[in-house]
């Protein structure tokens, strides 16, 4: 596809005998807001780690903006920004210093770095707090800073792994407004995961639902609701993935990973 910015082909990741991601293929169109949904342990985070070069696929290929995530790591890394599931700021530095650090690592020229930091911190309404240490920030402020930081180097894709988890509805709303605004203004493609289905329903132009490492549904939120004859995306999601609790799957993966770590020692 000409217009696709993410191209995933037959992607598989195994941890020992356990297959976390099982032969999935999908593509994301430029400028899209792409929701990657699934219950706990479905393989979402593993997929994001492979998309962002943190994990090696067992097999299959991923192209980000035309670059292979295994053979052209640095080009791939320049092409995306990421907000991780859990915090990844340096608490002992100020907001501006965290931005500065990121800019230098991504080789953004000094003048542009300053201009861009001001522009982005103003958008996420943290410009006035730029010289405060991050450890004084609330959860929502940290998230906003991470979003601003992720966009500093003009990435083409922004990965958001559960960007609104643990935040109150007001903050969640604000954060999505910033993201939608930046998506329009900067033409950045957004790839996100979330457990809040109403959010996905509201913002995603396309969603993919994964379960047990496989893709089980793809389409616009409207299409999925229509296909499953449900009123909300949440109902569609439950109908597609079943009602059983997924804690055990999740802990299975965790224990496998832990075992692996132990072996590595």
């Amino acid at each position, binding site marked *: 596809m000409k217009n696709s910015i993410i191209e995933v082909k037959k992607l598989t990741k195994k941890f020992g005998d356990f297959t976390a991601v099982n032969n999935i293929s999908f593509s994301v169109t430029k400028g899209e807001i792409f929701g990657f949904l699934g219950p706990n342990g479905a393989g979402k985070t593993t997929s994001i780690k492979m998309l962002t070069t943190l994990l090696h696929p067992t097999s299959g290929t991923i192209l980000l903006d035309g670059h292979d995530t295994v053979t052209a*790591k640095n080009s791939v*890394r320049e092409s995306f920004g990421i907000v991780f599931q859990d*915090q990844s700021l*340096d608490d002992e*530095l100020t907001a501006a210093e965290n931005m500065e650090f990121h800019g230098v*690592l*991504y080789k953004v020229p000094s003048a542009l770095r300053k201009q861009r930091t001001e522009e982005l911190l103003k958008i996420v309404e943290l410009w006035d707090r730029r010289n405060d240490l991050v450890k004084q920030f609330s959860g929502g402020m940290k998230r906003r800073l991470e979003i601003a930081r992720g966009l500093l180097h003009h990435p083409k894709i922004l990965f958001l792994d559960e960007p609104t988890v643990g935040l109150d509805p007001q903050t969640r709303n604000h954060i999505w407004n910033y993201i939608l605004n930046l998506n329009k203004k900067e033409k950045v493609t957004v790839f996100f995961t979330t457990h809040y289905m109403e959010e996905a329903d509201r913002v995603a132009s396309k969603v993919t639902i994964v379960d047990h490492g496989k893709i089980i549904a793809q389409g616009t939120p409207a299409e999925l609701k229509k296909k499953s004859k449900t009123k909300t995306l949440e109902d569609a999601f439950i109908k597609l993935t079943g009602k059983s609790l997924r804690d055990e799957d999740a802990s299975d993966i965790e224990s496998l990973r832990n075992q692996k770590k132990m072996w590595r020692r």
Partner: protein
Amino acid sequence: MGPIYIMWLRQLKRYSRSRARMIGSLGQPLIFLLAFGFGFGHIYEKAGNGDYLQFLAPGVISMAVLFTAVFSGIELIWDRQFGFLKETLVAPVSRLNIMIGRTLGGATVAMLQGTIVLIISLLFGFRPDFQSILISLLFMFLIALLFTALGTALASQLNDMQSFPLIMNFLVMPLFFFSGAIFPLKGVTPILTIVASCNPLAYGVDGLRASFGGDSFYGMGMDFLVLGLFSAFFVALGSYLFSKIEI
């Protein structure tokens, strides 16, 4: 150079902002200078070995460098736990550069801490020969580099701080106590001499002491050679293990 510089700068900023850590880590060297320096001083002198403080101070300075360096390296575990490590690992920068910046930053912090202890020991009456201060700084730097890299290598294999006491008690403390920092290696039982000769810190302490005008056990050239080789080895090992980190 940018990424190396910014990693280095980050370590320094973190250090300068945590006054508690800076002051806290001076406690141990102070206790050693006071308790050992003044407690054993007169016995040492009676045995005809001269002024104990002149002998002890380079050892305590090395200790300050050792502790701060290992701790700086181990800080990587915090970066992993608090998530900051991921930010550096997805950046379009080679891991070698990140590791070099980190290690140089940690080593600089350890040297600063060593310099503070040097100044304190001057206040207590340590009178070194400053003619070869550059060589003294070089030895301090090599000790700092070696043990920051060692700390980083260890931290890259650990997921939490639970093994930290283990490292302190079974690695760092023995390294210090069996290095000849607090007693002369000359004339001790052969087992201790053998143990010390396998201990890279022993060469660091010995070289630092010699550069300050004290007696050398191994000879300064030998100190420099062995310490340099150990440093190179641990920097290489740390870089390799750091490049293998998966999250």
